């Protein structure tokens, strides 16, 4: 099994930004059109991360002209040039399939505040209580 692990590890990308479900990402993937190759951007909310190691995938959802579009990307695919994390979302679930049933404001995910901001905000509140 050692060899299999090594084969799998060899295919992992060296620099993949850390992101989880609820984050808004922009995925730049290569698209081949005949002879030419260009880069296509797909921006949306990460709905799920599935699988592990070299076969890991993630699903990005966006609403385009009123139609929900979901695209599944292979995390370690050479066709993905870059993944940009635009915003971290505050969610309590690993899979956000419930977004499919929601629209408009209900489908909005709140931005996750940086941990330092929460820490500084918390003591002030406790003082007020006392």
């Amino acid at each position: 099994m050692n060899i299999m692990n090594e084969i799998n590890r060899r295919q992992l990308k060296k620099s993949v930004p850390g992101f989880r479900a609820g984050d808004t990402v922009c995925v730049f993937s290569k698209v081949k059109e005949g002879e030419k190759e260009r880069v296509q951007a797909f921006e949306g909310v990460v709905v799920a991360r599935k699988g592990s190691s070299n076969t890991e995938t993630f699903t990005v959802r966006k609403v385009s002209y009123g139609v929900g579009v979901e695209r599944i990307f292979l995390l370690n695919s050479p066709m993905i040039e870059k993944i940009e994390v635009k915003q971290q979302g505050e969610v309590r679930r690993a899979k956000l399939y419930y977004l499919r049933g929601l629209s408009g404001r209900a489908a909005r995910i709140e931005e996750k505040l940086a941990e330092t901001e929460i820490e500084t905000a918390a003591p002030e509140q406790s003082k007020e209580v006392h």
Partner: protein
Amino acid sequence: MLGLLGKKLGMTQVFNEAGEPLSVTVVQAGPCPVVRQKTKAKDGYDAVCLGFDPVTKEKRISKPEAGVYKKAGVKPLKFMKEFKPAKNEGFEVGKDVTVSIFKKGDIVDVKGVTKGRGFQGVIKRCGKAGGPAAHGSKFHRTTGSVGMRTWPGRVLAGTGMAGQMGNVNRTIKNLKVVDIDSEKNLLFLRGAVPGSKNSVVVVSSRAL
């Protein structure tokens, strides 16, 4: 037909040049030392005997077997197989045959023993539908009718019935060699291969 004996290591996913993911089986094939070379003059036909996987303890093989390996001047091996290559030359007893006989894009056949599933019923073994589970049904997973009436008066050959499933020799034909790692003797074959992990398979090419 020339091939190699190997060990199935498992399945995984690799990307090809176009960036498409491919499901592949990794087989550690060879190195297979030539144990014996048969010739038309001496044996009546041309063939080459390749061995695989050295034994851990020499007492595990019988004395007649040990004699064969001693004569060839190779370490005692667990497995041996005879191939009839298109060109019966360039082989030397005692020398290894490696994955270098294959190249990327080759089409190969893989023979192995499938995973044993024991005594199985018709639903799993033959793909029959079975009956309803509830609503007063008494026909669940049994075989049911296996034929007609006085005519033909017998059960037709090939009718699916319960019995031993798996643990039989199977050959998967026309698998593509996606990649080769000659350093570690690895073959990356597109698709599935019979057997469990660490089971012995024979990878051969009809063109060689």
